[in-house]
């Protein structure tokens, strides 16, 4: 069995990005994580995760327009590089499902 290329948070950040249309920045991604996964993550954490994913070639980035709401500071938008991300997500999902195989009755009981 091949090893997953993502940690748990990395995987969730990438999925949240995909849910947001494949391109977004740290604040909406953090909100999406809270909304969908109930995970309260700081925008700083999300930013650093996306920055590392970019270094690893899973994401690309560009600087957006500065906003007075942010004190004139620019946003850094990250975009999913599908060619790199999809195989890694597929591997991650396959590994997870393999581990769950035959364990579904546990959930039914609960």
């Amino acid at each position, binding site marked *: 069995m091949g090893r997953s290329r993502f940690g748990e948070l*990395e995987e969730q950040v990438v999925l949240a990005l995909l849910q947001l249309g494949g391109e977004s920045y740290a604040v909406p991604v953090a909100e999406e994580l809270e909304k969908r996964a109930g995970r309260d993550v700081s925008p700083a*954490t999300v930013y650093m995760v996306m920055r590392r994913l970019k270094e690893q070639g899973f994401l690309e980035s560009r600087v957006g327009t500065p906003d007075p*709401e942010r004190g004139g500071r620019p946003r850094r938008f990250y975009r999913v590089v599908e060619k790199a991300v999809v195989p890694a997500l597929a591997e991650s999902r396959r590994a997870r499902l393999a581990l769950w195989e035959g364990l579904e009755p546990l959930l039914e009981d609960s």
Partner: protein
Amino acid sequence: MTSPGERIPLALRIAARLLPRDAREEVLGDLVEAWRAREHQHSRWARARWTQRQPLEALRARLRPRSRGTASRTPPLRVIRRAPRLGFSWLDVKLGVRMLGKQPILTIVAGLTLALGIPSALMPTHAIGLFNLDLPVEEGDRVLGLRNWDLESNRPFLRNLHDFRVWNETLGSFESLAAVRSDAWNVHSSDGRAAEVRGAEVTASTFPLLRVPPLIGRTLLAADETDGAPDVVVISEDVWASRFARDPEIVGKVVTIGRQPHTIVGVMPAGFYFPMRDHLWLPLRAHAADYAVGTGPDLFVVGRLTDGVSRSQAEAELRTVGARLAMEWPETHAGLRAELVSFPILALGERAAGPLANWEVVLLQLFAFALLAVVCGNIGTLILARTAMRLNELAVRTALGASRARILGQLFIEALVLAIGATVVGLLLAQEVMVRVVYRILADDLPYWFDLDLSLRSVLIALGVGAACAVVAGVLPAVKATSPRIQQNLQQSARGATVRFGALTTVLIVAEVAVSVGFLCFGTAAAMSFGRDRSDQSEVAVDRYVVASLRTPSVAPTGDQDADANAAQFRLRTAQNHEELRDRLAADPSVRRVAMGRHLPGVGFADRPMILDGTGATDEAPNGWVATGQVHFDYFRDLGIQVLQGRGFTAADTEGVHHPAVVVNDQFVERVLGGGSALGRRLRYPVGPGGTEQWFEIVGVVETYGTNINNPGRSEALYHPLGSADHPMRYIIEVADNPATFIPTLRTIAADVDPEAVIQNAQPLADLVALSRLEQRAGTILVFVLSGVGMVLAATGLYALMSFTVSQRTREIGIRTALGARAGSVVMTIAKRALLQLTSGVALGCVFGWWIVAQVTNDTEFAVESIPGLIAGVAAAVIVFSALACLSPTLRGLRIQPTEALKES
């Protein structure tokens, strides 16, 4: 770097600081956005909790291991499941906190001392580190400066247009190079007003090299660099916001810069001010073909290292090419050394090793750590005294089976809790001082990449130093107090503990008292001089004047133009600009008077030592110090300053290389010459070894006028003449109305005289005087704080010594009291050694203080009426303060009852 004055919670700023430099602005933006969004969605309490949590989250994010994927570059951190047994536990931390609470005075004194001492000790490293800062751009550590260093003049050689061409063509270690020339221009508004804006002429390669895309439009293109191409400009986000109200249709708009209209082609994002604090970027249109080797404009060259190439490899290649160029162009390049430096070193023109040589840095750092060691030594004395009082407790714990390591561990943790707490307080203080004071004063002058804020690295180093302090101040005394010999004595003898203070402690206390007396003398002299605003006693009504300087841009000689002819042309243009601006200002109805000079009332009269002919004074022992200024030859006429004897300056006084005529004021005649005849007297300044003596002759005496606004009582001064072509030249303008509102008019008149000449540093004289007083007061406060720390340290040392003496000699004091000893005799028993140390320290300090004050009062900024009075006052204050510190142990000694003492022993 956060913008000064912006209201952002400190926790969010700290969180951003904990992340890599090039991520901080963007993350801070994210945090601010999320924080603002929470204003309406969450309760105030929930929002505050979220805010306070952010620094920890940021720290976790920074330290978070990379995912375990195959692309991961570093292995994940190993989780340590069980801490090794080090002889202490969390209970010790709790006990440590409780012990600190039980002795609040010791905690406050030692804590504050460390809180000031640790950041101060790290200051040299932090300051030196500023010269190795990376540019805040993507992979900024790979953007470096290339330059030639002139070995003879020990300065950078910047006329390197030809070098830039060769480097560009041959160096393979850099993926790209860019050349930059920083300048300032008049930018004209549609209503005809002009304002000085700092900008840079850059090659088109600059923006891709820095990897900063434009916010709007485009950056410069190679085609923009060709002669005859349309004039274009890229502007900063600040200029876009302040002058164009963020007009979304900004691209294509025209703005007049200098004489030429330029089309705006792009806007750079907020926070980008490359190379220094620049707001405009124009194409650099200097071509090597137009200039001889070693001529042309001054350029900074920056390069981005090619992937996989190290800095040392790139430097080796650059040196090789440099050596080849030195052979090819021996006339200009024989004495040059090509070198690769950090961007701050390049931009500030410092030596490659930084502003200080390596040994100087080491020396400075050693000095700082030596001071910290003194601080720790003193706190160690306090802790030793406290530990000595707990010897019985320690003996009981030993008897119950606690190992020495266990006891040492507990004492170390107590000191560590104190030191780490103090470090955190000290760092927060330092950060607030930086943000609130330094940035506020220097905000517009600091280069944009200059980052005084604390980094994660600085915080970690400070915590490390804090832990080291805990070892020195906590463990060493504990080792002494728990030595087997002492424990044995304690168990076998009823005489009490036998820990002793050594000669080192005595030297430490005497030195601290002496140093604090000396510096307090200096601080008091400074406070007496700068604590009061004396500008109302000056002849110059500071609230009616504007000061400014005019800079005429120089143009490098092109093609076959002779350098001398070029210089003469520049001098002529400068002289015309200076005189025309003065005359146009004088004709303006809102101007009362206008005059020119390099040193004007409130602007930098410089104190210099001086030797009067015929007085026997020498270079080593001059007659004294005097304020000197250079003023235009029409200065006295223009300001209506009355000539009392002889004559004022004329244009003839500025001809030739040496200008021997000087004019002095009446205070100079009275204070320096003792009221004698001044005309014809000769004077000179000291010269260094091998220098030539240059004598000046007094040709006139004028009435005193504004030579020392801060301290009008010391206004003796002499003037040297300047011609109209001399530069830099400042203007002092008396206006009928509010000086601040006249500044735009001044810029407009100057732009009308020469659209390319730039008015710089225009401000009301009152602001300038206030700023100079603020700087003086800040310096005074710093001296006071440092001397106060010294005095508190000395007093705590004395307190510790006496407190220790009382606890050590309780039995003896009890017996003496039982035998009928008088209170005075008991006090002497307790305080003899402390008194000796105090009086020795004060005596030494008085000598030191006298010397310091005598030196500083040569400076005309200082106003001290009586040196003996000042010294006596400070000595008395130190004695009283130290006596107060000794009061508590003395009273404790006097309260010892013989029966109690004998019972205890």
